[in-house]
């Protein structure tokens, strides 16, 4: 009895320590990004009135500036709007492709597959979720890019469309896997009730199971969003990377993540440019944090509503 209680305590302490550690690391990253990012906005040491590259940025100019051009001779510009839009456009397009396919896939796995086949397919999907993004980038660069260029008769296949399709591919496993989990916690009695009324498996899935699992599926979508918005390498390889606001699917595009990856190495250490990239990272962190928080909350609500 007593030994059991001590073991209980031990496990609880272990878990608490882990949770605190995870939170501390997260907080540490946040503070680190903030501490560096903020220095882009405050004059640090010598401001040379002759050299525009030492002028601190204004918050308004950073958040609402329509041009990102740190290398411009004379007046470098640090407006994140094109990058933010680049991230959002590619991510939203990716989700437009991945959500319907992902939900359909999850319904298929959860409702139509059984036993060993189910387990195998699910494992394959989860394996694909951890696929190295460089490899997917190669696929976009060497296969999808040329194909898009030929099919749509455009000069380059490295554009918004290519990046979005790759992001869709990469968020698909997450969406399928988490949606499948959400579908599986829907009580079996709902399926029975629907079948007993003469509903086909697909009608049952669409009219009963999906609505019952909607918050879990929403969470899956949010996680897919997080995956897509944070992806760097594959996008870097296929997006063309011109920091402009794209006007069509066939324009090149530059996202927040790729900007950091491209420019961090070439910016002078502790320059305004250098700190501005940390500020970008901070924005990205906020986006990812909020989508994950929302997803967590939705998943928790889902679990609660079925343990009556």
């Amino acid at each position, binding site marked *: 009895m007593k030994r059991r209680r001590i073991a209980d305590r031990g496990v609880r302490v272990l878990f608490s320590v882990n949770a605190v550690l995870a939170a501390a690391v997260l907080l540490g990253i946040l503070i680190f990004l903030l501490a560096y990012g903020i220095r882009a906005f405050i004059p640090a040491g010598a401001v040379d009135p002759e050299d525009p590259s030492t002028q601190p940025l204004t918050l308004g100019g950073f958040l609402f500036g329509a041009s990102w051009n740190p290398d411009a001779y004379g007046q470098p510009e640090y407006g994140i709007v094109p990058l933010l839009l680049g991230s959002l456009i590619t991510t939203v397009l990716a989700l437009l492709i991945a959500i319907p396919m992902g939900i359909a896939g999850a319904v298929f796995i959860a409702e139509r597959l059984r036993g060993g086949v189910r387990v195998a397919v699910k494992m394959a999907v989860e394996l694909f979720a951890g696929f190295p993004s460089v490899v997917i980038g190669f696929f976009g660069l060497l296969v999808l890019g040329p194909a898009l260029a030929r099919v749509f008769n455009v000069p380059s296949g490295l554009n918004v469309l290519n990046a979005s399709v790759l992001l869709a591919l990469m968020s698909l496993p997450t969406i399928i896997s988490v949606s499948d989990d959400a579908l599986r916690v829907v009580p079996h*009695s709902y399926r029975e*009730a*629907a079948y007993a009324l003469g509903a086909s498996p697909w009608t049952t899935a669409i009219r009963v199971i999906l609505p*019952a699992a909607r918050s879990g599926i929403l969470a899956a979508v949010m996680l897919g969003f997080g995956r897509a918005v944070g992806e760097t390498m594959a996008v870097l390889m296929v997006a063309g990377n011109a920091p402009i606001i794209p006007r069509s699917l066939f324009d090149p595009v530059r996202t927040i993540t790729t900007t950091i990856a491209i420019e961090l190495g070439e910016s002078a250490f502790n320059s305004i440019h250098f700190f501005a990239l940390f500020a970008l990272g901070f924005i990205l962190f906020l986006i990812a944090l909020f989508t994950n928080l929302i997803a967590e909350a939705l998943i928790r609500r889902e679990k609660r509503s079925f343990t009556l």
Partner: protein
Amino acid sequence: MSPEGSVNSPAKLATKNLSVFYGSFQAVIDVGIEFPACAITAIIGPSGCGKSTLLRSLNRMNELIEGAKIRGEILLDGKNIYQLNVLELRKRVGMVFQRPNAFPLSVFDNIAYGPRVHGINRRQKLTEIVERSLKAVRLWDELKDRLDQNALGLTDEQRQRLCIARMLAVEPEVLLLDEPCSALDPIATLHIEDLLRQLKEKYTIVIVTHNMQQAARVSDFTGFMLLGKLIEFGTTSQIFTRPQHPETENYISGRFG
């Protein structure tokens, strides 16, 4: 009242040499039973004797269980149910489960679910069906102002009635009920039994029950099952007053099960 002794009303639903297997385990053994039209037939027997399995075979719900197989014949109006489209069969042979399994939807959408699945989408028609179905289970007065409330917020009895109404909404001919009152209190149980007595005017009803008083109170015919076999079938009064088999008598008098 049921005709004493003989069972010669026309059979709405019947099984012939029906066996049901779970893998290699045989849960129902060579059962031949006829369910007379517009009457209530109760299936009684100790736990695990195959009552639910038999019932679930009648609308092919049992085949949703992995590894379940059947042998023999099931006839609806004399026609083998495997010659019917399974969705059509389940529309004609409705089912109510042990635990009220209302959908997490509004009262209205719960009842409209079946009709919608079968292609009825006009709002006015659906409203009519919802009203008629709720009236049939005597829930209309209680719920007519709460049709858009989530059905999960209703009481157990209301939810079980709602499940019956939901089944009636697709206009079935046969009602299968698997221990429909086991999650309800005694008063609610009596209410549901009243309801069943009314419904038998129009429907052929099969009820599985653990509760022998309930079988005696509500049914016209009774079948007694033991270890997968149908031991005895007859009018309820005959089974309860003059059982032909010693096993039946033992069970009725409470000596086992």
